[in-house]
């Protein structure tokens, strides 16, 4: 019996620890080196236009065509995202947050991820009241 309990603990503790660690905000997980990375396309309208197409094809399904979030998935026009550094947004695109529902987009070439960052940074901050179809920026803890 003791042996069985020990085995269950061995299996469960790492899983629970991992889930507990995942409850922290992803921004806190970003290493300093990544946080400081510079977007090679920063401020380039062409890159933002390319990023818009990439966003439509890959991200809009979860975050909404207007990036305001939908079905409980977070808005990308929230203060949290718009105040994040380019490096932080690039980090979440590359790594995702699988325990919170955000997949990794590491298979997209790095240049395309930076183009996405450029587009996301070009979005205006959300000012409208949260609706049923848009998530509430204050509740954007998942992202």
């Amino acid at each position, binding site marked *: 019996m003791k042996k069985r309990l020990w085995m269950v603990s061995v299996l469960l503790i790492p899983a629970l620890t991992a889930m507990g660690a995942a409850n922290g905000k992803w921004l806190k*997980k970003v290493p300093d080196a990544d946080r400081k990375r510079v977007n090679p396309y920063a401020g380039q309208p062409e890159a933002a236009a390319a990023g818009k197409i990439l966003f439509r*094809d890959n991200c*809009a399904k979860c975050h909404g065509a207007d990036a305001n979030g939908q079905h409980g998935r977070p808005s990308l026009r929230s203060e949290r995202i718009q105040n994040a550094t380019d490096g932080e947004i690039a980090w979440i695109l590359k790594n995702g947050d699988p*325990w919170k529902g955000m*997949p*990794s987009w590491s298979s997209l070439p790095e*240049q395309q991820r930076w*183009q996405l960052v450029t587009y996301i940074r070009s979005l205006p901050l959300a000012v409208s009241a949260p609706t049923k179809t848009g998530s509430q920026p204050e509740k954007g803890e998942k992202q």
Partner: protein
Amino acid sequence: MICQAWRVLLAAIPLTVTMLTLGAPHAFAQEPPYFVTYSQVLEEPGNLEVAQKGATASPKNANAFYSSTFEFEYGATAWWTTEVYVQGQTTKNDSTVFTGFRWENRFRPLPTEHFINPVLYVEYEDVNQADKSFLEITGNHTISDLQVNNSQSQPLIERSIEGKLILSSNVHGWNISENFIAEKNVSNEPWEFGYALGTSRPLASAASAKACVFCRQNFSAGAELFGGLGTRYTFGLKQTSQYAGPTVDFNIPRGPTLGFSPEFGLNDNSVGTLWRVKVSYEIQQFRDLFLRKGNR
């Protein structure tokens, strides 16, 4: 037997068409263009990918065949993808038969990206020996397996559990993936092993600022190498088939993905050339279709 196979295949076609016409938005899959090798890419949570994979060949001293596999791949979470396969084949001068089904699950154990990203794969197979899908090769698969009539091979059903260790890296735009396969028939047969290696990259690293169909970014190309590794008692590259070949994918913007690959047999146990085609279509946020209207 023909009726049974056609019933399954014909049932899958309207199901596929219905799904495609549901009006759900669709998009690129970010998957590399492999037919056998798995990478670390899982289905995005909530998405359903419907795919049809075909393989055809004219083996030496055997009838030509066409094998068709329907895949339904669902992203249960960002770290768990589950997939069902239904497959059949038709052999010239022989018959068309249903060859079985598979249910696979892939799990991504690590929460962040690393230089090598592991994915754990577990599959249950209920496949008969008439299977010619070449979804993977394990054990001592040889060309003589393709010379058996469907009437003799179809009744021989193999139920097995298969595990794969998938290791995958993304380096400077290239994807490099390695799979090690171990399969155990639930009856008293020895462990069988196999492998698959693949490398690929999109033809353009940066996306175009204009929406376009034939942009280089919509194409990806690479190569695959796969084959059997024998059994627990006959481990090695001999007495089994080995294949290698180029592979290419075309992601039609807001449409399906088309894949093509000629794979060349590398030894006398292999078919000369195995031609593969793939059509896949991703229904985005399939699970949202089942949300109550007020929550959409």
